[in-house]
């Protein structure tokens, strides 16, 4: 099997002063390349912690996490940054575009940090075309609608051709019609580019469109540790 994500017994402990809080208490699962996976769970369930770990923004306290064949638990900050740059695309609820930069400038950012100068503009243009914004390339975020801004963010997540895209409530700031459009765009991209999609969501309507659902409660998986095989 071609696993893009392998998590073995992930634990995360936060120290809040004297008290230790266990956000993840031993989570194991695998994700197949090209799958769409939803992460659901009430607040305080460890959802954010799991997402941060999967996106390589944070390291687990113990356990092993292998992303696209690379074990990341023991990497230092700069190595993690490099992994994020090459293997992870982020889509946030609040878009997180830089207001000073144009649409294409925002999409170029990950390429800049990858040290790519040649063909940078072309690759960014290609990504914008894939999200249907080729005619808005020189617009700044404040000149774009919410849906358009999220499309720019998706183009930015795509541009480095990552192994996974982490989408954190991607439709949370959009009305339902635009939200559906964005979901359809993500699903289409998954089909066309074959990018693995991890969606953190509260919305069960969105979860229904995915292949697998990871449900978290109190730092543990609700549906056992073998979600990758539990659903055909």
């Amino acid at each position, binding site marked *: 099997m071609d696993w893009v994500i392998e998590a073995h017994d992930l634990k995360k402990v936060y120290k809040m002063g004297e008290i230790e809080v266990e956000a993840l208490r031993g989570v194991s699962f695998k994700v197949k390349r090209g799958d769409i996976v939803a992460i659901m769970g009430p607040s305080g369930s460890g959802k954010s912690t799991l997402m941060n770990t999967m996106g390589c*923004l*944070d390291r687990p306290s113990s356990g092993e996490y292998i992303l696209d064949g690379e074990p990341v638990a023991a990497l230092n900050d700069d190595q993690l*940054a490099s992994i994020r740059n090459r293997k992870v695309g982020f889509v*946030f609820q609040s878009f*997180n575009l830089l207001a000073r930069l144009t649409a294409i400038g925002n999409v170029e950012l990950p390429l800049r*940090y990858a040290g790519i100068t040649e063909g940078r503009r072309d690759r960014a243009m290609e990504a914008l075309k894939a999200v249907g914004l080729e005619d808005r390339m020189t617009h700044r975020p404040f000149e774009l609608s919410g849906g358009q801004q999220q499309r720019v963010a998706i183009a930015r997540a795509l541009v480095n051709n990552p192994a996974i895209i982490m989408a954190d409530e991607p439709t949370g700031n959009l009305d339902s019609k635009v939200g559906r459009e964005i979901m359809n765009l993500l699903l289409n991209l998954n089909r066309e580019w074959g990018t693995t999609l991890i969606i953190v969501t509260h919305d069960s309507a969105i979860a229904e469109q995915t292949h697998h659902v990871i449900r978290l409660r109190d730092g543990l998986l609700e549906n056992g540790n073998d979600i990758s095989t539990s659903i055909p």
Partner: protein
Amino acid sequence: MTLAQAFLEALESLAGNKMRSGLTVLGIVIGVAAVIAMLAIGNGAEQSITGSITSIGTNLLFVFRGNMQEGGPGGPRTVAFERPLTLADADALADPLAAPSVLMVAPALQTSGTITFGGESTSTTIMGVVPEESEISNLILTEGEFINEEHVLGYASVVVLGPETADNLFGHHDGVVGDTVRIEGQPFRVIGVLESRGGSMFGSQDNQAFVPFSTAQARLTGRKAHNEVDIITVQAISAEAVPTASEEISQILRQRHRTPIGEDDFTIFTQEQFLSTFSTITGILTIFLGGIAGISLLVGGIGIMNIMLVSVTERTREIGLRKALGARRRDILIQFLTESSVLSLVGGIIGILFGWLISFLVGWIATASGTAFTPIVGIDAVMLATLFSAAVGLFFGIYPANRAAALEPVEALRYE
């Protein structure tokens, strides 16, 4: 990210908040302008003083009455049985056998007095001189002639005016030869006017009046009895002979005044001593002024640090996002350091131009008010200011940039 990219991005980001960037830059502008202007004025002062000391003649030694060198903090030391310098002393110094290194000797009396012409009156330094004074002190006349031997022998009531003195009395300094002025109420005929020489260490050299030694002795000072003189100017035969001449003068005067060794009742200054004394003074002045200006540059630097800290806090989310997209610690560090350096470098460049303008204005005002004085903006000062301002930007940028680079991506992204 290449440096050129970082630079462009820094400019973009700073342009995004023009008012704030402008005010921050202003702090550096003022600091650098102050440094440049102060150094220029200090250098100019040194040049002008050095110039005026060399313009009074070459290879000169000045002999004064009293011991000024061994004085303690209370002023010149008083020597028991101090004798004044006399005409006879001056004659002895002119003896080529006793003082072979001495070329020429010019004793002089110095007093201050009021000169009047018509309704105008001016107070000035009045020198009672011998004809040699003209040659020793490089006095050049724009019209008329200098005091000659006959004037001295005949106690002539004649005067040679400095150009500024002439201006003060007549409103101009040409065509005044032949007119009669009154010095301390006594009539003196103007026989010559000197060429302008600019400012000097003892005020303006242009505001002086020269009368024959004998006339000054008899009519303007009350020291006829002992043939006293105030200052003896001695010219050595060459620059190398100045120390020997100084030694010869000391020997002759010690013998004549019968002073024990180490208890000289006269003081010899050479031009070099004046030069080094004044360059020490102007050096201290320059450092002092530059130091004060440096403090304002420091304050400007703190302004940069302050604004960069605010900027880091404001852009916490941006930093988080950049890190999520793959920015390493170094990338963030460079981004913020570039911004602070660009701020201070731009401030430095504007400050240099501004400082230049200030020095130019100071020179212009000084010249317009009669003191020829040119501030000198040296390349070294410009380099220093550029380097220093860039260093200020880097130094005061390090702390905020480090803070930005050390942010945890998870925390930074969550920041509202």
